[in-house]
């Protein structure tokens, strides 16, 4: 009989095996949590402790002793952190919207239409990944300078969008392929115009897809240092990454303020991670790969 050897040699009971597996799983989980959390913990620790407490005695004290907002106070009163954050939020927000809109339109077009040059478009999008973005700095600067757009939100938004769009398009393209065309057809049959169908059916159904794309665009834009450096040249226009890198040079600014400003930069990503991860997962489940 084919399967007579089943179960041979199993001395450990099913329950026991389950236990061993659980222990393994939890150990991995804990190790990874430590790996991920420690840097974040340290950031929180430093942000909310006076530096002389953290660094006293030549050791970094890992146990919080007090709670202080002194570092933030310092940031907010002596630097343009608020202004930088505002700039960051403006360009990140507009880049997110722009990149996602382009991705939704292009993704929809690539899935729903057949036309000559479609595969060329798709390939161009893919190959644009392969050009090192740092080389774009000079041509883009020239471009924006010529167009008189330097030092504007518009130019920075455009540059950031340039970096995030290819992947976002790819994500949407894949995502739309999982949405059955019959959903749209069903709306047409019921008398809905094309535009109405897009509004009532396509967009709501594609939501996880475009939220993933938006999160990705967010990560790119919020992350950015190079492009902001290329495009922005006045203090009032710097984003928080550039701004922080400027004032962190200062004599009087130490690790504590560094961590405090890092903490501020972490708030939007944290909110996104907290509230939108489900969409991200859904979006990636189809968009990420196929």
């Amino acid at each position, binding site marked *: 009989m084919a399967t007579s050897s089943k*179960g041979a040699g199993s001395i450990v009971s099913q329950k026991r095996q389950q236990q061993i597996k659980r222990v393994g799983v939890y150990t991995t989980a804990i190790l990874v949590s430590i790996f991920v959390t420690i*840097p974040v913990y340290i950031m929180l620790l430093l942000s909310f402790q006076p530096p002389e407490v953290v660094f006293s005695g030549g050791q970094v004290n890992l146990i919080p002793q007090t709670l202080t907002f002194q570092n933030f106070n310092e940031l907010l009163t002596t630097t343009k952190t608020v202004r930088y954050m505002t700039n960051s939020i403006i360009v990140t927000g507009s880049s997110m919207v722009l990149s996602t809109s382009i991705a939704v339109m292009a993704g929809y077009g690539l899935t729903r239409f057949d036309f000559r040059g479609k595969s060329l478009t798709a390939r161009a999008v893919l190959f*644009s990944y*392969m050009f090192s973005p740092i080389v774009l700095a000079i*041509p883009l600067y020239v471009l924006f300078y010529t167009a008189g757009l330097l030092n504007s939100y518009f130019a920075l938004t455009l540059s950031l969008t340039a970096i995030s769009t290819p992947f976002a398009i790819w994500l949407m393209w894949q995502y739309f392929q999982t949405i059955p065309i019959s959903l749209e057809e069903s709306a047409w049959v019921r008398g809905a115009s094309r535009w109405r169908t897009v509004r009532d059916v396509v967009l709501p159904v594609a939501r996880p897809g475009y939220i993933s794309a938006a999160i990705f665009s967010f990560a790119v834009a919020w992350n950015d240092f190079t492009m902001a450096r290329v495009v922005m040249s006045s203090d009032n226009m710097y984003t*928080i*990454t550039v701004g922080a890198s400027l004032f962190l040079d200062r004599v009087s600014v130490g690790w504590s303020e560094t961590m405090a400003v890092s903490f501020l930069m*972490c708030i*939007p990503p944290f909110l996104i991670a907290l509230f939108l991860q489900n969409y991200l997962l859904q979006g990636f489940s189809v968009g990420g790969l*196929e």
Partner: protein
Amino acid sequence: MSMETRTAHSRRFFGGRRFLLLVCFLPLVIFFTVVWVLPILYALNMSLFSNPTQEAVFVGLANYTELLSSPGFWTFLWNSVVYALSTTILSLLVGLGLALVVNQRIKGRSILRTMMIFPYLLPTLVVIFLWKFILDPNVGILNQVLVDAGLIAQPIGFFSSLKWAMAGVVVTSVWKFGSFSFFILLARLQAIDPDLYERARVEGATTWQAFRDITFPHLKGAILIILLVRGIWMFNKFDIIFLSTNGGPLKATTTLPIRVYQLAFNEVNFGAATALAGIMFFLLAVVATVYFRVFNPSEEVGA
């Protein structure tokens, strides 16, 4: 039979098709031309000149040949490959391990998930702050812990010793980018029909056999895509290395993108810098083309 063809045909007679097509692609085409095509052409054009921004002299491919024959090129290429491969593979492994864990029904999995996505969204600058602080030989927690535990006699300058610099940069990168693979793989794992595992158990498969014969084949396409996309991105990654080691010590972490930067801004040789970028582009395009031919990752998953 493809849905696209079906609708494409059926819509030929519908009003508005052309218009909708235009709406879908016009922004893309304009945008793409402005922010990618023009700059890239401009850059590639620069690579054919010496001193292209001031007294430009056309030199043809001289910049390219010069770069390829310079001894440093192969070192930097090697560094790039080491960096790109090790970060990609490690972040894949970390992502895979954790995705497998989170895919189990355990308590706190959603917290784990939140924790994992978080680093990916952080600005590189912040990531560097955090890791510099951890790996720093002076204030660094890691050194402090290792010294206190008696594992090392004196603090190690992780970003500044030949032995550790690449490792330091890689760990930092993996910390940030591990979650990219994690999310893609987790999504993929969750799409696997749990009945497949039950069927395998009934058929007598061990846990390992089930992983080999079910989990792995399902993840294969995703893994190939991650290797490709992440690999390209890491090969082109600039900021994380620049901010942590700036290519040092002694070129130990100088990758091609770092070198491009140095050529452009330290040595003010835009011709060579853009030529090097062109070489990188060419290398990646070749690798990607071969990769697509051999593995066809999109088909892998599509099935």
